């Protein structure tokens, strides 16, 4: 409860939450406001924004409604960002927990693998995965999740390492608790808050990764993605720069919202740091 109160006392955190709710609202309302396929031809190409009330944000090079693509794009960004984050955090927590709790050779092997993933530039790995498995919505989401797990894994491992030697865990051991209980019930609840807060960062990066992939036309071309639209707008950048500019702002606002909420949660859950 205190944490909730602290969260709402920070203007930045509240702003982040409001922005996030707006993006979520866009994603939910996209089907009602723009029931037609956002990628279907809607009118004359390259209509400037605010010149035609039918196309509030104008149309792109192929005459598709930009506003419709922005609303439907919110769904794609949140979906890919959310699911990829879930995948990354799940893998990361499992790997980090096992490595940090057991230590020794298990830790050694798992950390070698994590290190390998971190040594290979994540975007290059993403390119490799897309080259191998293709560019459907599902494969792109899974690929983004797979390249994002090492950071949460390291964080979880660090938490487990420090908590493992804490006296309350040792006390649990002297009481005769089995490993599973120590990991799941004693350590994990204490290790999880920083990881959940960090999920905000993972999600922000995931959204950026997908949009970059879409911009390079390596993501799913059959869905209305903000990155796709920016890539498309590049062809008419000299004059109709708004085709690229508008979806970029949408990405910026979404990533900003996710980061602000993450940071707000962090400050609310770790008030000691904020006071300093």
């Amino acid at each position, binding site marked *: 409860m205190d944490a909730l109160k602290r969260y709402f006392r920070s203007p930045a955190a509240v702003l982040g939450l409001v922005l996030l709710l707006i993006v979520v609202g866009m994603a939910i309302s996209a089907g009602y406001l723009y029931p037609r396929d956002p990628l279907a031809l809607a009118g004359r190409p390259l209509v400037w924004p605010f010149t035609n009330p039918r196309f509030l944000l104008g149309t792109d090079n192929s005459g598709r409604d930009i506003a419709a693509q922005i609303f439907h794009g919110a769904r794609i960004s949140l979906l890919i960002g959310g699911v990829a984050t879930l995948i990354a955090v799940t893998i990361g927590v499992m790997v980090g927990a096992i490595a940090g709790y057991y230590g020794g050779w298990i830790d050694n092997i798992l950390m070698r693998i994590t290190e390998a993933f971190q040594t290979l530039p994540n975007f290059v790995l993403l390119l490799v995965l897309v080259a191998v498995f293709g560019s459907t919505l599902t494969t792109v989401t899974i690929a983004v999740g797979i390249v994002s797990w090492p950071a949460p894994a390291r964080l979880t491992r660090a938490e487990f390492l420090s908590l493992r030697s804490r*006296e*309350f865990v*040792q006390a*649990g051991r*002297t*009481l*005769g608790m089995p490993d599973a209980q120590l990991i799941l019930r*004693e350590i994990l609840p204490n290790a999880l808050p920083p990881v959940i807060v960090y999920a905000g960062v993972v999600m922000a990066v995931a959204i950026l990764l997908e949009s970059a992939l879409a911009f390079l036309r390596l993501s799913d071309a059959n869905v209305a993605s903000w990155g796709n639209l920016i890539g498309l707008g590049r062809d008419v950048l000299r004059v109709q720069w708004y085709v690229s500019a508008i979806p970029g702002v949408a990405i910026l606002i979404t990533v900003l919202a996710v980061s602000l909420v993450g940071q707000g949660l962090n400050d609310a859950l770790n008030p000691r740091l904020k006071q300093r």
Partner: protein
Amino acid sequence: MSSTGPILTVDRLSVRLPKGADRSHAITEVSLSVAENEIVCIVGESGSGKSMMANAIMRLLPQGVTTDHGRILFVGRDLCAASAAEMRSIRGAEIAMVFQEPMTALNPLRTIGDQIGEVLDIHTGLAKAEIRSRVLSLLSDVHIPDPPRAAKAYPHELSGGQRQRAMIAMALALDPKLLIADEPTTALDVTTQAQILKLIRELQQRRNTAVLFITHDFGVVAEIADRVVVMQHGVVVEHGTAREVLRNPRHAYTQQLIAAVPPVAAPPPRRLSDQTLLALSGVVKTYRAGGFLGRGARVTHAVKDVSFTLPKGATLGIVGESGSGKSTLARCIIRLIDPDAGSILLDGHDWALMSRREIRQRTQQMQMVFQDPFASLNPRRKAIDLVAQGPIVHGTPRDKALSEARELFQLVGLDPSAADRLPHEFSGGQRQRIGLARALALKPDVLVADEPVSALDVSVQAQVLRLLTSLRERLGLSIIFITHDLRVAAQICDLVAVMKDGVVVEHGLTHQVFGTPQHAYTRALLDAIPGGDFARTPHP
């Protein structure tokens, strides 16, 4: 002793805390004075405002904390009215300070010589070569071995005692009129503490420095103080010469503090059972760190061939300084750490050879109480669940375990109505009682207590020790009691084993070991206890 006028006069000083703190003022209307060539001790427990005094005099209060009333007169000047630049020229040159933790008080990335030289550099116009030679002579003044090497060393390359000597050298570099020492020996081992106290005394007398010495330990007061100021909750409750206050404390709080520092003299021995409950023989634990495939690894012999027996119902103290291996030994006994060799026989079973699974089944026989009351309780569990946890793991139905836990609350002197609170809602002493209840819930035969009172304030220490003594009688517990504090060991232990560098150098009945120590190290430990006669004979 003071012939001239006071160097420092604090006149009805009040220090206000920011809104939302647990009280409005850290210090209320405190007056005191320190004269030349005089050591004044401020004594108090945590929260007494004694450290805030030092910060207020230095004008180094944390943000949001302000002096809102009173004056601080330093050789006639009011420091409260001094400008920031004036204060900077006074700090380090005329008033110097030594802190509690010498490791963190020194910058880890710069050499000792560099950090001492900095004081000379900013306050004097001395040339580099002159500063260098002054640093070396300061280091030899504080008796650091090999000053040229120490000057080139980084803080992590020196021992704790040497680091504190370097801090003192830094503080005394410009012959300040006033030295403020904030718990300068609390983080040190007892033998090192004795040396540092001697050094401060020696330098102070040679230079006629006025010293304001902040401590929680009346033993240290007896050792070093000319005059004493006792503080509680930001108010001075008693002041006077060291003799008066120690011999004839008037305020109840002072009496309580003095009573909490018992003499090392052990009470008359209890009759011990002939039956051996726990027998250790040849226990060894060696750590290897770093290195590749066993080559070039640093080898630490934490415990070397330790053997002793614990009679049923007795309390065996394992005493030693940090690094003696006493905590490692405790963790080997309860198998939080696997010993390399030796046997630990309890009730016919060798704990050193048991598998993890067997240990889990037998933990009811042996339980542990931990040092840190803040780290030893899972912050996300209610107190009652923490206590009931053990029996539930071992198959007691939940309802039964919870009702038994409530009874235990009463047994350890906690209010059962507080059972549903989370650990952070309890004080340190109360948390330690919860930890004790958790261990007792499994009805163990042996209790291993690792420094169970050293994280507590002295008055709380006494309460927890009394509780432990009474439980021992009522439940027939046998206890292994790890401590660095010989005074605590003398109070509670029937037998003691003195450990140094992983070896038990001497063991036997407490009153014999402490009364007629055989080993040189035991004598050194006993001699190092601060306070002279005050610490060795019962208080009137």
